[in-house]
């Protein structure tokens, strides 16, 4: 009663001055309190992170791009998965046991009791067979992940044998633990698609720790716990993935408290290392991707191997990496990144190049080309910076160049014969391919069959092709690694390649979070734990 009275009196006495004083105090209070963190506070068990693009393919047999696979890892299970940590390895997920019986047979046994969502029942070997074979049956663009898969033989409700036409080592490093290895329900997919083909963006069933609760295109993907999941409970009730194609935007979002985990750019790394955001851990991981300067062997201006070698030796990779990646990336010695079988400790051409040798090769080539050579590059700062440094370095020995900057849509079809005659005019090209954790994935783009498709240098070497096939079948890890080292040597000797860097993949996250990351720093979301 007294309280009511006091308020009433105060209200009665509210004059203009009192109101202004009150308003000023309120504004001052509002200005000093962290409104952002109060009003838009993150919920206790929602993990928020960014992805560099919005999802656009959720059928594992037709997957494209890593950002889709990150979501698939959450909503589907697979026989084996990548181990978290600093070294590439795999571990069991839905398989109770799995073994290579001989070069072409892999026997697996599923854990019992694993359930599909939506009442589609238990995951069986029949579902595994359906999931794996449909990529080939429906001519998926990623059917090559399965290599020479012949069929999957079902030997029991939970047991089966993966039968290959010939040995294929990448089945353990790419096919089974990555995109195509995810398991979907045969019944659910047939109900949804009739023929078992691509179900696109509408998964008819979930088999992983999470379900796709909501997708707001260009806004977020919301994953919530799968009530049918019988495996280890995931660390968060909800995962929210926000598409941000600019990593700098993700950095600002993290700083403003909008994200709990994000990749960061190499250009920001030094600054974050020196002055990290509050309660933040920063970790650096090597990337698997590879960047190189390629030379079109079929272009008349680059026919002379001496000229190509002059270009190789004139390029100081250390300078390029220091300038374009702010000293935060290491020079590459080949296609294959450290940590993968076949990585080379040294390249044949010194990282710093050798200007004297470059001049000698140029003289042997009869001097610099009469017309400037073109360098094609993507229209992002890092590529234009690299192209400009290469231009300056080649200029040091007298090789004139001209930089052609292109948008991604134009650039990524530059060397394709199906896109007209542009490949004929292409000379030097600054290129970057992303990579999966098997050396085969790198060398497969440079075999003769790929000339005019993704092999833009038009490099064709029978020995290289033979070694590539041999390495696919080689079961001895040391011998396999030696084959890949040999192949990179052949590429380098052709004069068509100057390997530049594998870039890097730094991440930052809240101290209280325990992220599960692959050796290349990419997230394994269902295994994130801790709190945010």
């Amino acid at each position: 009663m007294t309280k009511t009275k006091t308020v009433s009196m105060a209200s009665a006495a509210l004059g203009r001055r009192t109101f202004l004083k009150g308003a000023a105090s309120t504004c001052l209070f509002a200005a000093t309190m962290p409104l952002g963190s109060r009003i838009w506070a993150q919920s206790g068990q929602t993990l928020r992170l960014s992805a560099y693009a919005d999802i656009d393919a959720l059928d594992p047999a037709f997957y494209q791009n890593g950002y889709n696979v990150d979501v698939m890892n959450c909503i589907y299970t697979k026989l084996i998965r990548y181990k978290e940590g600093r070294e590439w390895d795999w571990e069991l997920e839905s398989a109770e046991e799995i073994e290579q019986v001989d070069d072409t047979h892999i026997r697996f046994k599923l854990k019992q009791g694993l359930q599909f969502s939506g009442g589609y029942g238990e995951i069986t070997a029949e579902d595994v067979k359906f999931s794996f074979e449909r990529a080939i049956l429906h001519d998926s663009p990623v059917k090559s992940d399965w290599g020479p898969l012949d069929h999957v033989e079902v030997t029991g409700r939970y047991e089966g044998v993966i039968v290959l036409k010939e040995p294929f080592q990448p089945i353990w490093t790419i096919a089974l633990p990555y995109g195509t290895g995810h398991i979907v329900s045969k019944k659910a997919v047939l109900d949804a698609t009739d023929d078992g083909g691509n179900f696109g963006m509408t998964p008819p069933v979930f088999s992983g720790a999470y379900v796709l609760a909501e997708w707001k295109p260009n806004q977020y993907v919301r994953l919530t716990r799968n009530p049918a999941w019988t495996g280890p409970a995931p660390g968060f009730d909800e995962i929210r993935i926000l598409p941000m194609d600019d990593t700098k935007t993700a950095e600002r979002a993290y700083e403003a408290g909008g994200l709990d985990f994000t990749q960061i750019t190499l250009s920001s790394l030094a600054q974050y290392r020196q002055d990290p955001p509050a309660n933040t851990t920063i970790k650096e991981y090597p990337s698997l991707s590879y960047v190189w300067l390629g030379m079109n062997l079929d272009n008349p201006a680059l026919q002379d191997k001496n000229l190509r070698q002059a270009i190789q030796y004139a390029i100081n990779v250390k300078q390029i990496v220091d300038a374009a990646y702010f000293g935060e990336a290491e020079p590459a010695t080949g296609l294959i990144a450290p940590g993968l079988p076949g990585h080379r400790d040294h390249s044949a051409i010194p990282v710093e190049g050798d200007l004297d040798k470059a001049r000698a090769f140029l003289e042997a080539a009869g001097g610099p080309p009469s017309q400037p050579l073109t360098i094609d590059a993507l229209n992002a700062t890092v590529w234009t910076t690299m192209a400009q440094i290469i231009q300056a370095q080649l200029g040091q020995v007298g090789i004139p160049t001209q930089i052609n900057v292109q948008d991604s849509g134009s650039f990524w079809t530059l060397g394709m014969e199906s896109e007209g005659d542009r490949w004929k005019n292409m000379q030097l090209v600054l290129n970057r391919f992303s990579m999966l954790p098997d050396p085969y994935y790198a060398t497969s783009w440079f075999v003769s069959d790929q000339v005019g498709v993704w092999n833009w240098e038009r490099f064709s070497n029978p020995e290289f092709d033979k070694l590539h096939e041999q390495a696919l079948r080689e079961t001895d890890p040391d011998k396999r690694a030696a084959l890949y080292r040999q192949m990179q040597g052949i590429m380098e000797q052709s004069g068509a390649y100057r390997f530049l860097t594998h870039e890097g993949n730094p991440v930052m996250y809240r101290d209280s979070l325990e992220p599960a990351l692959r050796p290349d720093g990419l997230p394994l979301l269902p295994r994130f734990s801790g709190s945010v």
Partner: protein
Amino acid sequence: MIYYAMQRFLLSVLIVIVAISALTLMLHVVPGDPATMMLGARATPELIEQTRVAMGLDQPLPVQIVTFFGRILQGNLGTDVFTGRDVSDIVFEQLPYTLVLIAVSILWSATLGIVLGCYSALRAGTWLDTLLGILSVGTISIPAFVMALYAVLIFAVSLDWLPAIGAGQGFFGGAVHLILPAFAIGISWVGYVARMVRASMLEVMGAPHVRMARSFGLTEARIVRVYILKIAVQPAVTLLGTGVAHLFSAAVFVEVIFARPGIGALIVSSVNERNYPVVLGAVLVTTAIIVLATLVSDLVVALLDPRQREAL
């Protein structure tokens, strides 16, 4: 007036047709194949070719344009090559975010710009007028994306007052998430409108009908409101009508910086992916909106000014 409106409407339809035809032509001139982009690195050439045929990209260009307009007449904008979703669903899902952003930006910047322009004109030559002039030119010269970056760094990162990313949920969440993007886009328009209104008011203030009003002893407030501002605001209305196109452009950067959904970000990503159906659908809708905004601003000016009406 009705004849004028009809005439403008037909002209608008023609502009949309020309714009879309030109865009289709440009999309096919620039290199980059949507089928290749869609299927990714490991697709076989045969599969790429099959997909091109399925998308109608093997047809001659005029056939593709006619097919596109034929589909529009049936209310079908096509299908997104990546997700298989209807383009109309995608475009109309994203469009409201951009429209609200632009509407709020125009609303606050025009309101403030008109007030400041009036104030400057009424106190022309004073130090306040000079200060407002400097501030106006200052805001005009700052690009929206620079303003957006600093707005995020100051109000979201350093002060933690406002959210940095996204569009928010619910009315309150949406409103709060609009503050920084609308500020970034609208701030330069405050300067534009203020300078425009000031110059226009100074001109009108010396007009015979204003002198006449003063001689009749009308109050200054009434003269400004009824006889000056109504005329002086017309150039600003025209400016805002044509400025919708610029606001769409500014929205592209701002949507990227604030990771907001919207038609601008959609067009940029679709162009990069050579996702032609989405590009064409989105540009068709935005062109129609821009043409409509120009038409509306002309009609508003005609409504405000009897001389314009009589001239129609």
